[in-house]
């Protein structure tokens, strides 16, 4: 396994409707994404535990695009991953933030 931590800033504060949100399942080719509000001085911290080693660059690129899509601040995003493809990761991230912001869970 590999642990990866990334930080992003430049987002805007968001309002959660109901506290932390979780989507996805820790199963093969899938991942769970937990989004929690936390005072991080405007930054977002993403912590990833992944079964697939050596894909740090790809995670970084996926997350950069994610934070380009969503202007977010003061969020802790925690991920448990079992080799999900970037497409699945992007999808779960979008679902998680949508759920966090009060969309369908």
């Amino acid at each position, binding site marked *: 396994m590999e642990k990866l931590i990334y930080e992003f800033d430049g987002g805007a504060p968001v309002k959660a409707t109901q506290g932390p949100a979780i989507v996805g399942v820790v199963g093969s*080719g899938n991942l769970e994404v937990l989004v929690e509000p936390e005072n991080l001085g405007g930054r977002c911290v993403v912590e990833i535990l992944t079964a*697939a080693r050596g*894909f740090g*660059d*790809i995670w970084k*690129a*996926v997350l950069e695009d994610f934070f380009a899509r969503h202007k977010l601040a003061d969020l802790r995003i925690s991920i448990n991953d079992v*080799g999900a*493809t*970037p*497409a*699945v990761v992007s*999808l779960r991230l*979008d679902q998680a933030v*949508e759920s966090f912001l009060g969309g369908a869970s």
Partner: protein
Amino acid sequence: MRDWNIQARSRQARLARASSLAKGKEIGAADVAALLEAVLEPGDRVCLEGNNQKQADFLARALADLDPEKIHDLHMVQSVLALPEHIDVFERGVASKLDFSFSGPQAGRLAKLVGAHRIKIGAIHTYLELFGRYFVDLTPRVALVCAQAADRAGNLYTGPNTEDTPVIVEATAFKSGIVIAQVNEIVETLPRVDIPGGWVDFIVQSPKPHFIEPLFTRDPAQISEIQVLMAMMAIKGIYAEYGVDRLNHGIGFDTAAIELILPTYAQSLGLKGKICRHWALNPHPALIPAIEAGFVESVHSFGSELGMEAYIRARPDIFFTGADGSMRSNRAMCQAAGHYACDLFIGSTLQIDLAGNSSTATLGRIAGFGGAPNMGADARGRRHASPAWLKAGREARAGRNLIPRGQKLVVQMVETFREHMQPAFVERLDAWELAETANMDLPPVMIYGEDVSHILTEEGIANLLLCRTDEEREQAIRGVAGYTPVGLGRDKAMVENLRDRGIIRRPEDLGIDKRDATRDLLAARSVKDLVRASGGLYDPPKRFRNW
């Protein structure tokens, strides 16, 4: 004075050697080895019917068990190496040379024996090429074929899985060859005659019904939301755009997803009656909902599919069926149909390079081609027009001083990463390395980049028809290659430019909201749903059931 009748006299001599074994055309199962020894001679060209689905498994076993002291150096000319016995004949020294098309299940063993110089490969073909050579320079001396039933006159009923049998028998029987058929049963009256008895020399009832593999069943339960998204893009960004009305689908979950959202998504776009009416396709169970919804008008098939028999029988307006009601498939005919009469082929692959060449070759496996290249290639001999073909041709020729002609739509549909994070886009195909290690003349390319019109990934569609330079083409491919190294290596400004010109189209450019891409769009989400959609007529193989 030259002897013009050597082949026919050889045939007579072989039949004479076998005469004591046969009662009429019938051979007892126990006498098959003796029969093969009688009619075969070392060095003979032999076609052992190995299809995509049905297999002459009893005859294959018998052939592999022959004494290599007596029968050796056979030259096997067969479309598919599917069974272990297809390789055993080489391993045991009965055969030594091979011309074939596809060896999926046996690709690893084949590569080993080639490496050990136990098999000499003539060439790896597409189906139509190999069938063509049966009539030119690879005509079988002896054909070992497979049918559902025979009557005592040797007429064969192949049942729905006719597949390669007609082309093999025709080539063999009309060039003084010998045709031996294994059948599941010998009956007084056949439901219909698929192969005339006059073309068949011997029939043997196999102890067990021949093996047949349900290769074209995809369980809708395994289709992911990413695949649904890609299917939406295919329908809205390609099928609707070009008015694709005659087509072939490769087998896979991606294409099953397209089939399963025709009655939902395509219907909602008002496309019924405008796209996907005529198919060259095996009877995919996943097509049932679209057929029931009235999307489909005709389906001609290479082979059949286990469990679809009763459904096909009940939908004769759609499928090609005999007077007896059961399906008649024909691989050679359907390949020709797919090549010349379809406007679009869409299928998946393992690797695509920067020029759009795609390959399913991996190191240590000689898998061959099968039929995809016949479908997935522009038909340069095509002359009749259709709106989709003309539009593709116009796009490819716009701004160039060329005489008008059409072009086939050849779509490669892949997720940017396969399982275990294997990238689908690569700088260099593994096929190069395989070609070097296996001493091939050419790297085994499934679909040449010059034939590919579109590449579709979860990131978007790249329309290669519109690219005018190699550089544009490369950036268009990189622009849909996602987070693979190839994708990350894109020139972002150029990719945005290609997007502005409509060469690259993202889901949002097509007006597709990714959030709509859920499994709820699938007209059937399980095999049981397919049974329901068929009104109980589809009877899936046991391994696909969960009830």
